[in-house]
C-alpha cells in the first residue's frame, strides 16, 4: 500500500505512543519484581535493576499465602466457568431453537441480569449465603460468579447457535436423532469457537473478580488471588517488590491464555454485542 511520508510518520508515532501507554505499567511491574529492596527505594529510581534478583518471587512462592490463593483461584474459576458454560449451553440452545410462551420475558430477564449494579445486591447475597452456610466456601463463590458471567455467556452463545444452519439439525431429526443428541453431536461441535470464547470470557472474569471475593471469602482457606494481592499491599509497610512479584504471578497466566485465544474471544464478544 502506498502512503505519503507524513502519513507513515504519523502512524509510526501513534503506534509507539500506543505501545508505550499499554505496555509501560506492565514492564515497570516486571522490572520492579526483580529488584532488591534497597534498589526499589532509591531516589532517583533506577530504570534497569543493577543486580536482578528472584528473591521477591522466592518470598511470594515459598513464604506467603499466594500459592494457596492461587489454587483457590484455579478451583473457583474452573468450577464457576464450567458450571456457567453448561447452564449457558442449554439456555442458549433453548433461546436459539425454540419458541415458547414467556420467551421474551426470560430473554429480558437475562439482559437485566447483565445491567444490574452488583453493588446493589451484595448485601442480600451476603445474607442469603450466610443463611445457606455458603460464606467462605468454594461453592458460595462459584455460585455468585454466575451473576457476572452467565448473562453475557447466554447472550454470546445464543447468537452463535442461531448462526448455525437449522437444516443440519432438521436432517438429523428426520434420521431420528433426539434433541440432546442433536445438541451434543451437531450443534456443539460446530460452535467450538463460540464455546471457547465463552470459556475464556468466564474464566478471565472470575479470575480477576475482586469485590465479591472481598465480601464472601474472608477466610484464608478460600480467599482468591486478588484478595491476597490486596492484603499484600495494604499492610502498613507495603513490600512493593513482593507485590509486584505477586502481580506477575497473577497476571502472566491469564494474559497468556487470553492472548492465545484472542481472536476467538474478540469474535465471540463482538458477535454477542452487535447481533444480540
Amino acid at each position, binding site marked *: 500500500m502506498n502512503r505519503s511520508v507524513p502519513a507513515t510518520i504519523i502512524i509510526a508515532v501513534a503506534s509507539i505512543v500506543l505501545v508505550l501507554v499499554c505496555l509501560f505499567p506492565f514492564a515497570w511491574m516486571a522490572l520492579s519484581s526483580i529488584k532488591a529492596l534497597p534498589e526499589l527505594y532509591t531516589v532517583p*529510581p533506577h530504570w534497569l535493576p543493577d543486580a536482578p534478583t528472584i528473591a521477591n518471587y522466592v518470598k511470594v512462592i515459598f513464604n506467603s499465602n499466594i500459592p494457596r490463593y492461587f489454587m483457590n483461584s484455579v478451583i473457583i474459576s474452573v468450577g464457576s466457568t464450567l458450571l456457567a458454560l453448561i447452564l449457558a449451553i442449554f439456555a442458549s440452545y433453548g433461546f436459539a431453537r425454540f419458541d415458547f410462551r414467556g420467551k421474551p420475558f426470560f430473554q429480558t430477564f437475562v439482559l437485566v441480569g447483565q445491567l444490574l449494579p452488583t453493588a446493589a445486591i451484595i448485601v442480600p447475597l451476603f445474607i442469603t449465603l450466610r443463611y445457606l452456610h455458603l460464606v467462605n466456601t468454594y461453592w458460595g463463590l462459584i455460585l*455468585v460468579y454466575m451473576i457476572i458471567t452467565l448473562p453475557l455467556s447466554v447472550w454470546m452463545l445464543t447468537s452463535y447457535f442461531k448462526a448455525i444452519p437449522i437444516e443440519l439439525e432438521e436432517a438429523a431429526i428426520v434420521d431420528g436423532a433426539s434433541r440432546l443428541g442433536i445438541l451434543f453431536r451437531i450443534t456443539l461441535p460446530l460452535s467450538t469457537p463460540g464455546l471457547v470464547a465463552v470459556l475464556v470470557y468466564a474464566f478471565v472474569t472470575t479470575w480477576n473478580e475482586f469485590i465479591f471475593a472481598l465480601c464472601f471469602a474472608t477466610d484464608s482457606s478460600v480467599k482468591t488471588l486478588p484478595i491476597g494481592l490486596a492484603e499484600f499491599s495494604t499492610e502498613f509497610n507495603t513490600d512493593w517488590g513482593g507485590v509486584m512479584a505477586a502481580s506477575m504471578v497473577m497476571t502472566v497466566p491469564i494474559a497468556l491464555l487470553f492472548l492465545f485465544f484472542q481472536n476467538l474471544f474478540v469474535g465471540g464478544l463482538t458477535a454477542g454485542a452487535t447481533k444480540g
Partner: protein
Amino acid sequence: MGRQSTGLLFILPAMIVLAMLIAYPVFYTGYLSATDAKGALTIKNYANVLRPAVTTQAFINLIYFVGGSIVFQVVLGTAAAILLNLEFTGRSLLRSITLIPWVVPGIVAATTWAWMFHTEFGIINYMLTGSGVIPAPISWLTNRDTVMPVLIAINVWKLFPFVAIMVLAGLQAIPADLYEAAKLDGANFWQEVRFVTLPQVWPVITAVTLLLVIWGLNSITIIYAITGGGPANRTLITPIQIFKLAFESFQFNQAAALSVIFFVVAAIIVAIYLKMQAMSAREAR
C-alpha cells in the same frame, strides 16, 4: 420447531440459578430497606442514609468518575481503533499489545499504578520532575485535587482497549465501496473519518458506551484498592459507600436502602440512555 415445553426445559436450569442469585436478592434488598433490625416496617433507613452530606458527595463523585472516564475511554478507544484499522507492518502485534491493559486484573492495575504514582519512589514523579514538567514531586494519591483525575486516568487506561476492539470490529464491517465513493468525491482523511467512518460505527459506540456506563456504576476495585474512598471522602463513590455501610458498619438495612436508591438511579440512567438511542436511530432513518 419443537414443542412448547422442550424449549422451556432447556432454559430452566439457568433461569433457576439467575432467579436465585438475581431476582431473589433484588426483592430481598427491597424488604431489608423497608424494615428495621427487628423486621418491623419503617422508612427510617432511607431517611438515615439520605441525610448525611456524604451520601450526596459520594453520588457526585460517582458521576464525576464515570462521566470523566467514559469521555476519554470512548475518544481514545476510537482513535486507537482507527489506527489499528489501517494497514501497516506489525498491526496484529500492536493489536495484541493494546489488549494488555484490559486483561491485567483490576487489582493488579490498581497496585501497579499506585506504585508508579508513589510520591517518593514513583517513576511518574521522577519522569515529570526530571524533564522539568513539574518543579517538585506531587503526592498524587493523597492530594485532594489530584486523586480523582489520577483514578480516572487509571480507569481510562484499563478500559479504553475494550472500546478499541469493539469499534475496530465495527470499522471492519464497513463496506470498502463506501470509502471508494468518498475518494471519488475527493474526500481527504479527516472528511472520510467525519462522513463515512463515524456514522457507520456510531451504533457500536453507543452500545459500548452503555456497557461502560454500567461497568462505571459498578466500579469498586480500582478506587477501593488505591484510596479506599479517601482522602477525606474525595474518592468515595456510592458502591463503596454501600460496601462500607454493610461490611464495616454492619448497617445492613441502611445499606439496602442505599442499594435500592442506587438501583433506581442506575435504572433511570440506563432507561434514558436507551430512549435517546432509540430516538437517534429513528432520526438516522
